[in-house]
């Protein structure tokens, strides 16, 4: 077994929020899948170094933290390998195991059907999403602001505001949303500044406002724990300004 795969699974194991039995079974299943994928890659390209093949084999599993998160804390509620579902139904609990499973299955079915119905509705207009499914990024909101600058323009600096990340974020997303006010007026400019715990500017941009606009920036760097600051400055800005800072990884 390769070192990379071992290291990856160690991280998944650390991040999994499940009971020990489920955790061991998840790791065993993933290890089997990775081994098989690695073997298939090695057969196709026997001359390629094994560590390169390992990296490739791991790509489609996503980051270990995201993978562990996808299993969800609900994994801790898995009672038995037979798949029995236990739900708290108040009085229904007393009706016996068969009723519990029946209602659990109905609730689960309704939830799944809703999800499938939404999926089916969107699938037809968004078939390309199914081709080459990209790994899901789990973003957590770290900071938001929403300001209304009308009818008087806003001018001057706001912030810096700060938020702390205890473990360091691998990726930060900045969503900037600029809208006209209720009368359709929008103008001026907004400058956004994002600084890391070492005081290094990670992002600085001035948005010249001419109407409704939405900007998304994905920023990546080596994880750095500590206090991040964000500041923005208005220059005769009229309209509505919104900013959401979200992170992948890191604890807020």
């Amino acid at each position, binding site marked *: 077994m390769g070192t990379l795969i071992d290291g990856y699974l160690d991280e998944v194991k650390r991040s999994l929020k499940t009971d020990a039995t489920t955790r061991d079974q998840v790791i065993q299943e993933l290890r089997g899948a990775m081994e098989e994928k690695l073997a298939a890659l090695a057969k196709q390209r026997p001359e390629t170094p094994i560590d390169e093949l390992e990296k490739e084999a791991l790509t489609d599993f996503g980051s270990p933290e995201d993978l562990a998160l996808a299993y969800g804390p609900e994994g801790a509620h898995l009672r038995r390998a037979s798949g029995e579902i236990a739900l708290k139904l108040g009085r229904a609990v007393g009706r016996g195991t068969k009723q519990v499973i029946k209602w659990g299955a109905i609730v689960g079915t309704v939830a799944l059907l809703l999800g499938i119905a939404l999926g089916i509705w969107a699938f037809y207009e968004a078939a390309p999403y199914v081709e080459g*499914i990209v790994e899901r990024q789990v973003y957590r909101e770290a900071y938001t602001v929403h300001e209304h600058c009308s009818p008087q323009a806003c001018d001057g600096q706001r912030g810096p505001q700060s938020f702390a990340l205890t473990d360091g974020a691998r990726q930060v997303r900045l969503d900037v949303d600029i809208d006209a006010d209720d009368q359709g007026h929008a103008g001026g400019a907004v400058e956004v500044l994002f600084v890391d715990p070492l005081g290094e500017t990670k992002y600085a941009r001035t948005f010249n406002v001419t109407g409704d606009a939405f900007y998304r920036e994905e920023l990546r760097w080596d994880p750095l724990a500590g206090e991040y600051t964000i500041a923005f400055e208005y220059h005769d800005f009229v309209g509505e300004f919104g900013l959401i800072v979200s992170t992948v990884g890191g604890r807020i």
Partner: protein
Amino acid sequence: MLAWNDERKRFREKLDKERRSGVLALVLLVALDRTGPEYGYRLLKTIEQQTNGRIVVKEGTAYPLLQKLERGGLASSYWSDGSSGPPRKYYQITELGRQVAREAVDDWRALNAAVSKFLDGFGR
């Protein structure tokens, strides 16, 4: 206006996750119905081959989803004894899963037909 835009974007992102999850759940269930008991890696390969590469489900999405299907009673699993290799976790569709998938596919076909009819002639 901004609050609505904010909610709209968040809803779109949530919908994005939901629709992928919902569609993939159906794909996995139908695949299990066709193949019979199968383990994850081979199930994903089967889906890829049978769709000529148009549906590629990544492992980081598939394995947690298979577990969720099992928790929901739509699939069950067992471990192989590993006599010809490492132990593998095999999944199979349950009767409940078959029923849910049947209904979901019917809904899909009805929606597909309705949308096709609605779009007919557009862009010509």
